[in-house]
C-alpha cells in the first residue's frame, strides 16, 4: 500500500509470542503485510499499516493475536456515538 499510510501509533493489534505456533495464517490473510514469520514465530513488522480488520485474530488457531476489530469509517463511528452502541454502518445484517 505504497503512498497510503494512515494515522500512526493507534492500532490495537497485539501478538502473544509465547502462544504463537508460527503457522503463518496471519501473514497469509493480512492485506497490509503487517506480519512476517521467521524461525517458527510470527512477528509484527509494521504495526502502523494495520487497519484492524481482524482477519489475523479470526484465523489464528492458537488465539495468539488480539485486535479490536471494526470498520474504519467515520459515519459508522458517528452512528455509534449517537446511538450509544457499537460502531455500525447502520445495517441490520
Amino acid at each position, binding site marked *: 500500500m505504497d503512498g497510503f499510510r494512515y494515522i500512526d501509533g493507534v492500532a490495537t493489534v497485539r501478538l502473544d509470542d509465547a502462544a504463537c505456533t508460527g503457522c503463518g495464517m496471519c501473514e497469509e490473510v493480512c492485506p497490509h503485510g503487517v506480519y512476517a514469520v521467521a524461525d517458527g514465530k510470527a512477528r509484527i513488522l509494521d504495526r502502523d499499516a494495520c487497519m484492524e480488520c481482524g482477519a489475523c485474530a479470526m484465523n489464528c488457531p492458537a488465539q495468539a493475536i488480539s485486535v479490536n476489530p471494526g470498520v*474504519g469509517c*467515520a459515519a459508522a463511528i458517528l452512528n455509534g456515538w449517537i446511538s450509544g452502541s457499537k460502531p455500525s454502518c447502520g445495517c441490520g*445484517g
Partner: protein
Amino acid sequence: MSEEKSGGCCAPQSAKASPCCGGGSPSKDGLRYEETFLDGQVETPAGAVPRVHSRVGRRDLVGRWKMRWGIGRDRYRVAPGLYALGAPGADAPVLVTANYKLTFDVVRRDAAGLDAWILVLDTLGVNVWCAAGEGTFGTGEVIRRVTEARLAEVVSHRTIILPQLGAPGVAAHEVRKGCGFSVVYGPVRARDIRSFLEAGRKASPAMRSVDFPTMDRLVLTPVEITGLLRPAGWAAAVLFLLAGVGPGIFSLGAAWERGFAAVAVLAAGILAGAVVTPVLLPWLPGRAFSVKGGLAGGALGACAAMWERGALDSPTTLALLLAMTAVSSFVAMNFTGATPFTSPSGVEKEMRRALPVQAALTVVAGLLWVGGAFLH
C-alpha cells in the same frame, strides 16, 4: 472473489440514510437477474447445478452503473448456492463468493475459461469485505452453504478457495472442523484467480495486498455524493432561511439571492470533500482525511474568492473560505469508510480532534455571513 476491495464498509451500499450494507433480510425476494447469466445446468451426484457463463452484457453494465450511483442497491443480489462455470468435474476448484451481483459478475467474468464451481454465500447482497466485517460472510454461513449444496458429493477433494478479504469473517480452522473442507485464501482481486490457480494455489505478495488506484477511488465518488443528498438538502433549507435574515428582519429577495450563493458554497464544499479529495488522496498532504479535505476545500475556496473578488465583502469572503474548509473536511472524513487502509482506532482519534474544529469553523462562518448582511 472480491470485487469491492476498495469498498470499505460504509462506501457502497445504500443511498439511503444507512450508508452500509442495505438490506437485512435473507436473499429470497427480488432475485431477478438470473436470465442475464444462467446458461443451462450441470448434472452432479448431488443433483442439477445451474451453470453460468462469463459474459457481462449490457444489462449487467447498466446494473453496475446504477450501483455506483446507489440506485436499488439493496436488491442487487443473486440467489445463494452452488453454480457451475464451464464444465467442472469432481476435481474442479471451488471458489466462494458473496451474493452481491456486482461481485458475482466480476468473479464469473474474471474466471472465464476456467472449469470451476462457484459457491455463493448469502451476504444479504453485500460485497465480500463489508460482509466479512459484518459477519455475514462468515464461518457459519460457509459451513451452512457447503452442507446445503452437498459439496462433499459434488467434488472429490476437500478444499474451498475463499477471497482473502473474506478472512475477517471466517475462521479457516473452524470451517474445517464444521464441514471437513479446508479453506485456502485466494488473492484479494478476482482478476488474479487464474494466476493463483496456475501457480499451484499460491498467492504472490502483490496478490495478497490491497491497493487503491485512482480509478477505484473515482468509481466510489458518485455514491458518496448520493449518500449526502438528504443531509445536504436539510442544510440547504437552513441556509435559505438564514439567508433572509438581515436588517429588514426577513427578506425574501435576500433569502433567494444570498441563499443561492450559500448553497453553491455548500455544493462546492461537498464536491471538494467527496470527489476532489478522494481523487487527489495520495498527493494531498497530511495523514488525517479531515486535514486532506480541509486543505482541498480551503484551496478551492480561495480560488472561488479570487474569482469573485470584486463582488464579495471581506466578512463574506472569510465566511466562504471557512465554510468550504469545514464542509470539505467533514465530507472527506466520511471517505475513510470507503478506503481499504483506515483503522477504526485511527478514524476515532481523527474524529475526536477534527469534529470540534469543523463545528467551530462552521459557526464562525455562519456568524460572519449572517452578520455581514447587517453591514450594508
